[in-house]
């Protein structure tokens, strides 16, 4: 008989072997040996942590109760593996290219690196997996118990004590080999190798027991089959709905369980291993389940009524005095339990530490930015404490729940809880429209429904108020946990799975449709959904210049080549680096981020720079894609801007043209009005007086001659006006031909003075200086004379003083000759000065009957001659300055 002591010794020896294997594997991997450690075989075997003590003991128990139903637990994963090309391949590729450390990390990364989401998944996982860990502890203590019961050793055995020690031992192992590296993404070769060994052990143990049972006890395959048919489980008894539900559930759990994610994605060395695992792992599962039914049937037949079917694997060999086989079986069960607990604790601790402890710690630190290198220790410590805490939780759960619950039911409850992650996971991998809010809503809804319909009724009977499970919430029977929405009579597990996952999915999709994702979420969404299009497998960014090059390429796409080159060259110069690529110093990165932020927004720029420099969680191709998108947007918007600028320019031009036309039209109106007025006024006098002469009888001779003189004068005025108008129109249209000639200024002035003063009764005195006027001119002398006549006549007309005097002073400086005409009159009022050169501008009353065109004509003439005429202010009287180019200058403008 095996004593309890020897059993413990065997356990310790086995654990020591595991330690040794793990240690050697770590050393080999560290030295670069051991390619076989990375073989597909090891990968496939490591997946076998799916098969826990629940499989080893519980499958037989389940088969003894429900027949072939247990096999669904393995059919689900089989189907997932068969569909690896469409599903797992993507999951592994995403997981590796994003360098995720856990399923919580993956979900969080997909939905914009949301820590809230990560902590939700973590809490869900802890609640879902803790009972599972308790289950493993329970299976170990039960198996101890089986040996104790079978032995005659009277030595006392404290059941709870053994569970505690087992928990402590497993925690130590997990801490030693699971938290060696800071980077949770690095492979734990030691642990994986030990798990692979355990996978072999449990398979061999179960096969050995099966072979013993079929050929040793039943007497061959045929009799074994007959025995099965004859047993209590001899007929098919599984409802279709339950068959489908559990198959689906196990498939979902296979993907979502933290420990499965750990070995399948995080510890994956090479995604090509999936190709082998696609058939090898289903084969493993098939072999594991092959003898379950025969063992159950034979156990039911041979073992006394009331023995625990969960322990047939142990008790059958024991009761047949096959101690060696029993020991092997015990070790197989022990293997199943330990491997699951170790990996689960590792995976959960990473999640708890990364998504709950570290954020809290950083928040408590206050200043997150000052955290430096010593965070390493904090991370490792928190991960180790998390492992201990999870094991402690599992132990407490085990101690509290006792042995009342069948192994299989706990396992299924845990599966249903973990499966709540599935909608967010699948949606995140295949649907770009999935948002963080959607994932949160789905998870929360599914989680709550799961707790209410499955977790509480199944394991928390004491927590629920009596009568709730029958009467339902608020006394509404359709809200009772077992029969939600009138599903009474349906299997509670099926009902719970349908409702929890159904509501979960609906909430997830609806919320995703209603909300708008953040830029990072959208970037990550594209990353995940299109992972095969822009990743050729994970690449690490090593070497700072490589980073700078990538930053450069990215910047070019966003800023344009010139600006990007200038920016980088400037920084390189500032750093004193030869060449155009600077070191990616923090200051430079910050500057670059700001620069990019101007183009694409701060959040995107932060994400882009952060991704290139801060690790390879996003491949460069993706950044390029985003950069291209941004560049196109920028280009488009700048085109739009250019177009709108052009439009507004055109509009402005049109407005200006319109203004000009309006102005011209107004000017034309005003001009016509003026001309009309100037013509009609003399004609009015002429008509009035001629009618008086014609119609009035008895006019005396004096009257007749006076009215005749008025008519004559007005007729002359009309003629003058017409002459001036014609003159002006010729000058303005530029059709005037200049008659250039040489002459002296004094001669021109002489002629003008004599013409202007002849025949007038004015007493205007001219003051001239002969020396100053000795200036040779080359211009149109007749036109110049006309200007001078106009000016002298004006003085004569408007200078109303006793002794009107006009001072004419000529000066030549530089290339210009100026001649000033200043009289001693009142001058022109300030407000009229600006107008004197305009057509029909008249100052004062209608004294001399001028049409107001004289000065306008003067200005036209002077401009034709290449000079000008201006009114001089502050000269006492009216003062005009005529300027024209001297003889040596280029001469008059010929037109």
């Amino acid at each position: 008989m095996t004593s309890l002591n020897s059993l413990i010794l065997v356990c310790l020896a086995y654990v020591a072997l595991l330690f040794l294997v793990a240690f050697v594997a770590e050393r080999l991997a560290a030295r670069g040996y051991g390619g076989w450690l990375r073989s597909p075989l090891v990968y496939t075997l490591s997946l076998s942590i799916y098969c826990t003590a629940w499989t080893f003991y519980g499958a037989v128990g389940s088969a003894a109760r429900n027949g072939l139903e247990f096999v669904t637990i393995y059919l689900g994963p089989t189907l997932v593996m068969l569909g690896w090309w469409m599903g797992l391949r993507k999951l592994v590729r995403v997981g590796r290219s994003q360098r995720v450390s856990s399923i919580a990390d993956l979900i969080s990364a997909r939905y914009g690196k949301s820590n809230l989401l990560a902590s939700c998944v973590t809490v869900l996982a802890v609640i879902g997996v803790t009972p599972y860990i308790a289950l493993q502890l329970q299976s170990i203590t039960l198996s101890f118990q089986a040996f104790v019961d079978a032995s005659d050793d009277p030595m006392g055995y404290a059941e709870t004590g053994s569970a505690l020690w087992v928990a402590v031992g497993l925690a130590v192992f997990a801490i030693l080999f699971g938290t060696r590296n800071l980077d949770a993404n690095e492979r734990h070769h030691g642990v994986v190798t030990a798990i692979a060994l355990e996978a072999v052990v449990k398979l061999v143990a179960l096969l050995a027991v099966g072979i013993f049972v079929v050929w040793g006890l039943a007497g061959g395959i045929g009799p074994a089959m007959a025995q099965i048919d004859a047993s209590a489980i001899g007929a098919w008894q599984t409802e279709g709905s339950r068959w489908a539900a559990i198959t689906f559930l196990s498939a979902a759990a296979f993907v979502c369980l933290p420990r499965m994610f750990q070995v399948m994605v995080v510890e994956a060395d090479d995604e090509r291993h999936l190709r082998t695992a696609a058939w090898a792992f289903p084969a493993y599962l098939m072999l594991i389940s092959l003898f379950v039914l025969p063992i159950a049937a034979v156990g039911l037949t041979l073992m006394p009524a009331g023995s625990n079917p969960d322990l047939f694997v142990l008790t059958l060999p024991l009761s047949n005095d096959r101690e060696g086989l029993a020991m092997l079986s015990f070790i197989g069960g022990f293997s199943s339990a330990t491997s699951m607990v170790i990996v689960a604790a590792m995976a959960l601790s990473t999640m708890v530490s990364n998504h709950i402890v570290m954020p809290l710690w950083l928040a408590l630190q206050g200043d997150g930015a000052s955290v430096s290198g010593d965070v390493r220790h904090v991370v490792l410590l928190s991960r180790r404490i998390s492992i201990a805490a999870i094991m402690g939780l599992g132990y407490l759960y085990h101690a509290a729940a006792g042995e009342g619950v069948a192994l299989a039911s706990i396992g299924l409850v845990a599966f249903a809880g973990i499966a709540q992650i599935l909608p967010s996971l699948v949606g995140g991998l295949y649907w770009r429209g999935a948002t963080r809010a959607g994932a949160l809503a789905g998870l929360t809804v599914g989680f709550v429904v799961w707790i209410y319909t499955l977790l509480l009724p199944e394991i928390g009977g004491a927590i629920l108020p009596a009568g709730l499970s029958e009467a339902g919430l608020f006394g509404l029977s359709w809200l009772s946990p077992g029969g939600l929405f009138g599903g009474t009579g349906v299997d509670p597990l099926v009902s719970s799975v349908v409702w929890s996952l159904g509501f979960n999915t609906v909430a997830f999709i609806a919320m995703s449709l209603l909300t708008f994702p953040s830029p990072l979420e959208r970037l990550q969404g594209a990353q995940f959904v299109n992972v095969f299009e822009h990743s050729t497998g994970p690449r690490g960014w090593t070497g700072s210049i490589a980073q700078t090059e990538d930053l450069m390429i990215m910047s070019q796409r966003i800023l344009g080549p010139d600006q990007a080159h200038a920016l980088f060259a400037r920084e390189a110069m500032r750093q004193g680096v030869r060449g155009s690529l600077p070191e990616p110093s923090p200051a430079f990165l910050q500057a670059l981020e700001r620069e990019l932020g101007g183009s694409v927004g701060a959040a995107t720029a932060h994400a882009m720079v952060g991704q290139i420099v801060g690790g390879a969680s996003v491949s460069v191709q993706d950044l390029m894609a985003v950069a291209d998108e941004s560049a196109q947007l920028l280009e488009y918007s700048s085109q739009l801007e250019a177009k709108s600028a052009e439009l507004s320019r055109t509009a402005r031009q049109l407005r200006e043209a319109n203004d000009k036309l309006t102005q011209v039209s107004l000017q034309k109106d005003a001009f016509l009005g003026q001309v009309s007025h100037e013509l009609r006024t003399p004609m009015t006098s002429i008509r009035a007086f001629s009618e008086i002469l014609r119609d009035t009888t008895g006019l005396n001779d004096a009257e007749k001659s006076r009215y005749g003189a008025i008519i004559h004068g007005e007729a002359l005025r009309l003629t003058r006006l017409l002459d001036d108008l014609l003159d002006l129109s010729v000058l303005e249209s530029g059709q005037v031909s200049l008659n250039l000639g040489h002459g002296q200024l004094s001669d021109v002035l002489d002629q003008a003075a004599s013409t202007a003063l002849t025949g007038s009764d004015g007493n205007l005195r001219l003051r001239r200086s002969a020396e100053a006027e000795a200036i040779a001119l080359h211009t149109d002398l007749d036109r110049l004379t006309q200007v001078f006549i106009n000016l002298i006549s004006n003085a004569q007309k408007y200078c109303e003083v006793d002794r009107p005097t006009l001072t004419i002073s000529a000066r030549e400086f530089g290339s210009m000759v100026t001649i000033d005409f200043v009289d001693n009159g009142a001058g022109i009022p300030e407000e009229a000065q600006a107008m004197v050169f305009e057509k029909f501008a008249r100052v004062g009353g209608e004294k001399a009957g001028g049409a107001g065109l004289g000065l306008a004509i003067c200005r036209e003439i002077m401009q034709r001659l290449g000079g000008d005429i201006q009114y001089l202010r502050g000269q006492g009287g009216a003062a005009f300055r005529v300027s024209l180019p001297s003889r040596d200058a280029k001469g008059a403008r010929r037109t």
Partner: protein
Amino acid sequence: MSGGQTPPVFLERRTYRRRRVLDAARVLPWIGSALLAAPMLWPVARPDTDGATMPMSHAMTFVFAAWFGLILLSAVLSVLLGRTGATDLSDAGDVAQISPVRPDRGRAR
């Protein structure tokens, strides 16, 4: 195959083979699901009915035979995938080129 790109009309024999193997790999889980859903049609033995029942040995034989067949198919596909030069696990066609992401593109496939 993945949308958005025009594949050449005639593919190399090897590539053609590979694509058909991939088609098979995609179909396999559905075949598996159909096969393994068959037990849902079997009559369930209840204490109150004396109707026809499915002997457990038959049930077991069917399930394990189907299972074994699926594993065999998967193994054959795995070997074929390895032999057709599937050193890279990307979809045939997107190995050589990396197409930029279009923002409006939905699912990849």
